[in-house]
């Protein structure tokens, strides 16, 4: 059981190629981290997996537990078990956070089946307490006027409420203060387990102190160029990306 990305090539619709033969396998129960320089294609990878219409896959595959998700609409992918915590969560004016998450839960029920409102709110409040999100956030419009850190907590809240089998967290640590980072990491760790595979995109080793990855990858120029254990994150933290780029240049000219 895994999310397999196989030799993925993708570009902006009618434009520039961003992913150039990317391979990655995220097994259920494991946490993979991706690091990489700005503009290397990390967010694009996550959006392509989620089905963003700005991008087109020119070749390769994305398989969720063996089935291709590329023909599916973004909502069908989500219902198949995929979740993306956005680097920049979107504001939706006039739609309360509670109604939004409720609509997402309702979408997972069979036709004609109704969500139990009492159970739903009970669960929502419990998850909000874990993430230390005040109750007033249920009535506020989705992400509207939320601080950067509040938006990130709200992404993790949605993940907790939707219980995906594969979750991609795109820079969920950016914008969080040190206390919030611990709270959010605890929230993510609480969801860690045999039934979920995670891909954590980050620029900072610090997050990986709290959410320990099984594997660390480096993405440069639309490809995974290095894969190793958690020690790789420490190495990047002290040395930056230039040494990897130099290695790549050498092996290319060799």
């Amino acid at each position: 059981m895994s999310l397999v990305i196989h030799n993925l090539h993708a570009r902006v619709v009618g434009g520039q190629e961003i992913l150039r033969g990317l391979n990655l396998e995220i097994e259920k129960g494991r946490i993979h981290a991706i690091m990489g320089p700005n503009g290397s294609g990390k967010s694009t990878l996550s959006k392509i997996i989620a089905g963003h219409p700005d991008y087109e896959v020119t070749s390769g595959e994305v398989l969720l537990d063996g089935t291709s998700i590329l023909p599916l609409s973004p909502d069908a992918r989500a219902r198949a078990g995929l979740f993306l915590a956005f680097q920049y969560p979107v504001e939706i004016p006039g739609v309360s956070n509670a109604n939004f998450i409720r609509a997402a839960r309702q979408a997972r029920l069979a036709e004609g089946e109704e969500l139990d409102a009492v159970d739903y709110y009970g669960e929502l409040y419990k998850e909000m307490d874990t993430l230390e999100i005040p109750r007033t956030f249920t009535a506020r419009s989705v992400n509207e006027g939320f601080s950067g850190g509040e938006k990130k907590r709200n992404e993790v809240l949605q993940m907790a409420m939707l219980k995906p089998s594969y979750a991609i967290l795109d820079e969920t640590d950016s914008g969080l203060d040190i206390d919030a980072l611990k709270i959010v990491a605890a929230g993510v760790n609480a969801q860690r387990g045999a039934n979920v595979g995670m891909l954590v995109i980050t620029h900072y080793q610090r997050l990986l102190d709290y959410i320990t990855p099984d594997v660390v990858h480096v993405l440069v120029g639309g490809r995974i160029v290095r894969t190793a254990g958690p020690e790789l994150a420490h190495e990047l933290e002290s040395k930056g990306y230039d040494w990897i780029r130099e290695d790549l240049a050498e092996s290319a000219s060799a």
Partner: protein
Amino acid sequence: MTDSLLQDAPASATLPEWFRSTKTAAASAFETLPMPTRRDEFWRFCNIKAFDPQDFTPARPVAREISAELVAASNGLKTSLGSFVFANDQLVARRAAPELAKAGVVWLPLSEALVSHSDLVARYFMQTDSVLGSAKFQALHGASVKEGSFLYVPKGVRLSAPLEAFHWLAGSGQAVFPHTIIVAEEDSSVTLVDWFKSAGEARNMACGVNDLHVGSGAEVRYVSVQEWCRQTVSLHTNATTVAKRGSSIHLGLHLGGAFSRSESLSRLTGAAARCDMLAATVADSAQEFDQRTLQDHRSPETYSDLLYKNTLYDQAKTTVSGLIRVEPHAHKSDAFQKVRNLILSPDAEANSLPGLEILADDVRCSHGATTGEIDAEELFYMQSRGIPARDAYRLITYGFLNEVLERFPCDTVRETLQETLRARLRSH
């Protein structure tokens, strides 16, 4: 001639003399005034040719069984201090909490108030001339009106819950002339909701007028929910005057009708008077909504804020013409106006016509109209949570209009309106 529409409206002899002569004068004004055309400034973009008032006759009373059904179907607010149910301009049900009479509140059908409180009604009945184009229809209303709500709130009385009135229209080829008068004396506070509904699908006409008078320091919150059937032609004129430090909130939820014209004037006559003018409109199929407003600042330090939002599906059409006028002595006034159109179909048409006439100094004023589609990133965000595109569209559209409802400060009313809006959007 205009016979069919005006003939069977002989004012009852029990009605006060002033009212009967007003009616007569209005009838001749209606006959003299020309029918507006699109060439008139206030009728630009309007499909006024689409109807002829002569196609309708004053509504006949409905049969007993039908009025009983309409009363049963008059489900509005969860709690209210009083309610009227009118069917074809006839009172068919009424309720008033004892608290109202105890506080000296007058809550009467217009036909009764005209007899029991003649002088009081005379002071407020149609005292504002039409300023937004509908002089002819206002005259028609004046000539034909026979029923409506009269709500008088004495000085200092702050009502703890809203009141509501249902105006039903039944039959075919019928015309109703609903009227609502609110008089809120100094430092009083009141909320009233008018529901306009049809008993079935048929071509009918409604021609209504409101007179809302907000005394010094008083608060009036007024809601009109327009849910006429899809063949009804509706023309509604609202005149609100606000005395010093008074505050008016007027919210229109426009959902029904074939052609629906609403004119709304907020006249800020006293210093530091305030008005909020809000409207949320759902337009689909070939519906047309035509809204004309005037924020009329006549005293210093007055404040007006207008937010009108339209969502358009199919071949629907909306027009919002919003004027702001600040009189020379109305210094230090604030006037804001925002019109937002959400277009959900390439065949829909949204027109926005802002106008400013600022004659005072030291005025803060802003106005703007935007027209856009569903934001692709909002849609993707929703879909990425598993919400199908169609549901996401509906939810985003709801949110767009709900921003208007959110501005209404009374929770029980707002929740009912949100439910009404959700029901309206269910088919999209």
